[in-house]
């Protein structure tokens, strides 16, 4: 209770310094939030692309419909398969015309092969999984050819890995910067109360007792900075939506995680700062 009161008193005694701390934290978390937003949207875009990963097995002409139906049902039971669908020659022609739009006349009188289109479950869309499913589908005697855009899938996964690693590295860099800034602001608060701390120690206050209000202060500043950063990121997203491109925003779980992250950064920054001060006096 005393720790909470002391933490609040700091905000009242030094409102300007506190506001400065919260703003600094907010801007550093805002940079982190903006990066998070970009990363989230890249992931969304990649997920949408990944949804289109498909194995298409072209069927030899003259294959009995029953054989195709049995094979399609069989393929649908593969653990990696989300759905398997037979596309007749007529459907294939209609789809090609639809996809080519103004060049639809190219297919006038053409005959396209029937196929079994296989979509894969999330988690089984990596190049190795796709290759393995394609190989199994290819074992059916009536399969003439099989296509699954191997090169395209590999590019997609490379992009995804690069985005993941870049996300991790930049995220850690932003988190470190945020932590250093929070540590510095708490250090200022610690130095402003250096005399009080030295007297506390002389009269027998324990280090954990001295540390507690600063930890609470760091936590509160982290949460407040996080809230402000979330608001700024949301406003930035509105501007991006209006003037550049439509984007998705963090869901409640991600937003809560962001706040928690801010709070943790505040807590750790404070702990390091106060710990260093207590060791040095």
């Amino acid at each position, binding site marked *: 209770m005393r720790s909470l009161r002391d933490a609040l008193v700091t905000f009242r005694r030094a409102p300007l310094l506190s506001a400065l701390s919260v703003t600094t934290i907010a801007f550093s978390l805002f940079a982190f939030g903006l990066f998070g937003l970009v990363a989230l949207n890249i992931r969304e875009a990649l997920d949408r692309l990944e949804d289109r990963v498909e194995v298409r097995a072209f069927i030899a002409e003259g294959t009995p419909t029953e054989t195709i139906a049995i094979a399609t049902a069989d393929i649908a039971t593969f653990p990696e398969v989300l759905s398997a669908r037979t596309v007749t020659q007529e459907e294939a022609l209609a789809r090609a015309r639809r996809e080519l739009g103004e060049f639809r006349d190219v297919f006038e009188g053409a005959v396209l092969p029937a196929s079994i289109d296989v979509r894969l479950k999330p988690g089984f869309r990596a190049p190795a999984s796709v290759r393995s499913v394609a190989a199994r589908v290819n074992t059916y005697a009536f399969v003439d050819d099989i296509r699954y855009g191997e090169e395209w899938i590999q590019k997609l996964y490379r992009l995804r890995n690069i985005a993941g690693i870049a996300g991790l590295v930049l995220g850690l860099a932003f988190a470190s910067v945020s932590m250093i800034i929070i540590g510095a602001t708490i250090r200022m608060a610690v130095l402003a109360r250096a005399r009080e701390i030295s*007297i506390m*120690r002389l*009269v*027998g206050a*324990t*280090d954990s007792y001295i540390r507690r209000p600063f930890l609470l202060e760091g936590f509160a500043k982290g949460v407040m900075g996080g809230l402000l950063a979330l608001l700024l990121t949301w406003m930035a997203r509105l501007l991006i939506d209006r003037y550049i491109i439509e984007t998705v925003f963090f869901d409640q779980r991600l937003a809560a995680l962001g706040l928690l992250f801010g709070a943790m950064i505040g807590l750790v920054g404070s702990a390091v700062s106060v710990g260093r001060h207590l060791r040095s006096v």
Partner: protein
Amino acid sequence: MIRFFNVTKQYARTGTAVQDITLHVGKGEFVFLTGASGAGKTTLLRMVYLEERPTSGEVRVSGTSSLDATPGDVARLRRKLGIVFQDFRLLENRTAEQNVAFALEVTGAAKATIGPKVARVLTQVGLASKGTAYPRELSGGEQQRVAIARALVNDPFVLIADEPTGNLDDRATRGIFQLLREINAAGTAVMMATHNLELIRRQEFRTIEMNRGGIVFDSADQPRVAREL
């Protein structure tokens, strides 16, 4: 109560501050610690409240040893000690009462006991009527009395005073010294570092003189007449 066993303290940059000191201060004693600046008085006192640990040897205070005391042990020990400095070390934004109460609040004293204890020690140091004054509204002597009240509020078994009259005029010095005598008469041991030889000469208390980190005279070992301070 307070024991030093062959204690030496060295600093990496400034060298030896205290050299091979063996010392015992008993319950209820009044001890003057004197010597020129840099003689090692402050370092010796800092080792009593374990602000400094010896480089070699051992300091034992009321059962707490410098060899194995944890930070928690040090905090608990300090609750049984009173410490006073030349520069008072009061919090400027708190009244006299609040400065004294601070020592109780931060050591987890029950709220209901704080008010009466603060009133008792402020009366003891002669500041019953100035409890609501801020340090800047008090004279140097009065500020030192507040600092002494803060040191006394936890009923310490020893009061450590490092040049408590160094910033005071003669009149205030006499007042503070009289107060320390009264505190000692009530059973609290006092270890007081001072340059004020006039003050020492007028008293019959134990006197330890230090020079270059060592004890060169201890009136407990030698008759007072044997050395003219």
